[in-house]
């Protein structure tokens, strides 16, 4: 079980309306592959530096979670299927997982 760090850009119209739907979906996918969410922090909405498809603004969410190693690629596949997640990255993470506020100059 390794710890991972994931940063999401979420469609801000959906995030504003129903944030629980986003967190339920994401923790559901992590739970489906027998992972465990350590910390989830919502950075809030922000104007993207460049437009991604139709989106000019996006809501950012940072998540730390544990997951068995072979399940990461399947997790990525499921996250791509979700329409509300515009873009995401999943990275290995060493260190202490905690809720982080939006960084300075965000």
């Amino acid at each position, binding site marked *: 079980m390794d710890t991972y760090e994931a*940063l999401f*850009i979420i469609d801000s119209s959906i995030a504003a309306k129903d944030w629980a739907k986003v967190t339920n979906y994401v923790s559901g996918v992590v739970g489906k592959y027998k992972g465990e969410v350590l910390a989830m922090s919502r950075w809030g909405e922000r104007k*993207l*530096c*460049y437009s*991604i498809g139709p989106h000019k603004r*996006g809501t950012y969410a*940072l998540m730390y979670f544990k997951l068995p190693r072979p399940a990461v690629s399947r997790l990525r596949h499921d996250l791509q299927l979700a329409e509300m997640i515009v*873009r995401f*990255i999943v*990275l290995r993470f060493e260190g202490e997982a905690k809720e*982080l506020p939006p*960084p*300075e*100059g*965000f």
Partner: protein
Amino acid sequence: MEERTDQKKYRKFRQDNRCRFCREKIGDIDYKNIALLQKLCTAHGKLMSRKRSGNCARHQRVVKAQIKLARFMAIMPYVG
């Protein structure tokens, strides 16, 4: 004689290591740390060269990877 003067010239570069990360032991070169990464970009959002940023090769590689990650996540611009 030609060969010796070259060595003397390059020895100077290796001695005064002006890399800010080596000196101040700042650990977190991270794509989330935008304020730090923006200092290492030019006004046009391009990655600053080692000559200008003064980084050593090892830390410049780490900075390059993190800036590209921040650009992918639309936290930092590709151009401008």
